[in-house]
C-alpha cells in the first residue's frame, strides 16, 4: 500500500505505541523491547509510519541510502509533500551521489589529523573544569559539566564569536525536535525558533568565523572549489545544529552511568585509559540520538515485509543498541565492552561526521574525572529533558570527592 493508503502491508504488526509521547520518553526501554519482539518491521497506527527496532534491520536500512533516502527528510515530514521548515540540509538531507561532495568537506574538516591538533586543548579544558567542580563539591552534572564543558571547547573550535552563544542549545534542541511529528514539542520549538534561526544564519557567514576554526576551514573549501560559496554557510549550519547538544547528552549519559554503576566507576578509576570506551559504551547504552527516519524510494522488502515506495521508516537506534540478538547483556553498562558496531552515531554514509569530536570530548571529561575524583554521588532527583529525537537529562545533582 502506498503512503497515502494509511495502512501497512499484510503481516506487519500494528503498534498503538506513540514513540514521540512524554510517557514513552520517560522510560523507552520496555517499549523498545515490545517493538523489537513484535517483528523485524512494525507499523505505528498513530503516525502511519513503519518502524525497525532490531539491530540487523536498523543497520541494513542505514546502509542502503539509495533505497532508504534522506533527501525527503530524516524526520516524519516528507519533503516531497511538505515544505521543510528551514532550507534543506545539503549533507544530512542529501543522497548519493550529491552527498559525497559535501560529506568529503566535513570529513576533512573533522578528520583524525585535526583531532590530534585539538587534543591538547580539549584535555586541558576538561582537567581545569574538573578541578573547578572539585572545589565546588556539589553541582549539577548537566548544567555545570555536560553543558559547560562542550560550550567551553566546541564554539571556540568552530570559531564562533562570544556574543549570542546562548542561542546554540535552543537552536539544536529545535532542530532535533523538528524531526518528530507535529506534536506539542515540535510546534513549541518551531514557534519560538525565529531568533535562534536568525543567530545561526548570521554566524554561518564567513566574516563571523575566526580564522583556522572549523567554520573558516569549511569556507576555505569553497575557495578550493570543492563546494560553492553559497554551500559553505549551510555546512557550517550543520555543525551548529548537530555538534553541541549531541555531545552534551553523550557526556550527560556517561556521567549518569558512572554515578549509577559504582562497580563500573571503580573499574574506570583503576584504569583511566578505559575513559574513551566508557564514553562509547554510554553512547550505546543511552543512545543520545534515539531515532531517525528514512523514506523508501521504491517498493522494497525488509526481512519478509513488503513496503511500498514513498513510505517513512522510523529507525530506533536506541533499541538496536540493546538488541539481545546483537549484544550480550544488552541492558548492562560495561566500560570494557567491545562497542564497535553500535549505531549510536548511525552507520553508513550518513554516520555522524562529528563522531571524532564527540569521542575526544567524552574521553577528555571521563579521563579527567577518573584521575582526579574518588567518588560521584547522586544527591537529588535526576530529571529528564524531553525532545523528539534526543534523550538526556535536564538536571543531575551530584557531589564529588577528590582522589
Amino acid at each position, binding site marked *: 500500500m502506498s503512503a497515502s493508503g494509511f495502512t501497512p502491508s499484510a503481516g506487519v504488526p500494528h503498534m498503538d505505541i506513540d514513540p514521540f509521547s512524554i510517557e514513552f520518553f520517560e522510560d523507552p526501554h520496555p517499549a523498545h523491547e515490545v517493538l523489537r519482539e513484535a517483528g523485524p518491521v512494525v507499523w505505528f497506527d498513530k503516525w502511519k509510519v513503519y518502524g525497525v527496532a532490531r539491530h540487523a534491520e536498523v543497520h541494513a536500512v542505514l546502509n542502503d541510502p539509495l533505497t532508504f533516502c534522506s533527501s525527503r527528510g530524516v524526520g516524519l515530514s516528507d519533503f516531497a509533500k511538505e515544505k521543510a521548515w528551514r532550507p534543506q540540509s545539503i549533507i544530512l538531507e542529501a543522497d548519493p551521489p550529491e552527498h559525497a561532495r559535501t560529506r568529503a568537506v566535513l570529513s576533512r574538516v573533522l578528520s583524525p589529523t585535526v583531532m590530534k591538533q585539538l587534543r591538547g586543548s580539549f584535555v586541558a579544558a576538561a582537567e581545569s573544569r574538573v578541578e573547578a567542580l572539585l572545589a565546588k563539591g556539589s553541582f549539577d552534572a548537566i548544567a555545570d559539566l555536560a553543558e559547560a564543558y562542550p560550550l567551553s571547547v566546541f564554539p571556540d573550535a568552530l570559531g564562533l564569536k562570544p556574543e549570542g552563544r546562548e542561542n546554540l542549545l535552543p537552536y539544536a534542541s529545535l532542530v532535533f525536535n523538528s524531526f518528530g511529528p507535529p506534536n506539542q514539542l515540535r510546534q513549541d520549538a518551531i514557534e519560538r525558533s525565529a531568533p535562534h534561526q536568525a543567530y545561526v544564519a548570521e554566524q554561518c557567514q564567513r566574516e563571523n568565523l575566526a580564522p583556522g576554526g572549523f567554520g573558516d576551514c569549511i569556507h576555505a573549501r569553497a575557495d578550493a572549489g570543492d563546494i560553492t560559496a553559497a554551500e559553505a554557510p549551510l555546512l557550517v549550519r550543520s555543525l551548529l545544529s548537530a555538534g553541541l547538544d549531541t555531545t552534551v547528552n553523550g557526556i550527560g549519559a556517561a556521567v549518569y552511568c558512572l554515578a549509577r554503576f559504582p562497580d563500573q566507576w571503580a573499574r574506570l578509576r583503576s584504569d583511566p585509559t578505559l575513559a574513551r570506551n566508557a564514553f562509547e559504551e554510554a553512547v550505546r547504552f543511552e543512545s543520545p540520538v534515539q531515532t531517525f527516519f528514512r523514506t523508501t524510494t521504491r517498493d522494497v522488502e525488509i526481512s519478509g515485509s513488503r513496503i511500498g515506495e514513498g513510505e517513512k521508516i522510523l529507525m530506533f537506534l536506541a533499541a538496536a543498541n540493546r538488541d539481545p540478538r546483537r549484544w550480550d547483556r544488552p541492558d548492562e553498562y560495561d566500560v570494557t565492552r567491545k562497542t564497535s558496531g553500535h549505531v549510536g552515531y548511525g*552507520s553508513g554514509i550518513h554516520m555522524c561526521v562529528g563522531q571524532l569530536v564527540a569521542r575526544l570530548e567524552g574521553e577528555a571529561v571521563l579521563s579527567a574525572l577518573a584521575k582526579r575524583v574518588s567518588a560521584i554521588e547522586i544527591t537529588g532527583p535526576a530529571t529528564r529533558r524531553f525532545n523528539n529525537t534526543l534523550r538526556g537529562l535536564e538536571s543531575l545533582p551530584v557531589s564529588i570527592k577528590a582522589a
Partner: protein
Amino acid sequence: MPTIIFNRPDNRSERVDASAGDSVMQVATTHGVDEIVAECGGNAMCATCHVYVDEGWIARLAPMSEEEDELLHGVAAERLPNSRLSCQIKITPELDGLVVRLPDRQI
C-alpha cells in the same frame, strides 16, 4: 576458508579463519584481536583499525581510496608505506595466508 595471520606488537601471532566478503577488521573484532578498535564500525571514518600489511602482500591488495589515504595521516601509531585501514581490506580467496602486523596503539 582463507586464513589471516595477525602479528601482535609483543610478537605473538594469531591465525584466524576468515570468510570471503568480510573485511580484515571484521575478522579481527569477531576473533578477539583486541588491537583492532574500529570505533566507527567499518565506515572509514575513525582510523582506529590501522594495520601494517606484510611487504609480500601489499601489492596484492586492491589500491586504497583517497579517503583512506587521508585517514591514514591521522593514525595514532607511525604511518609506514605498508599502512592500511583493515576495514578497507575485503577478504577474497586469493588473500588466503595474508599477514598483517598490528600497531601498538590505535588512539
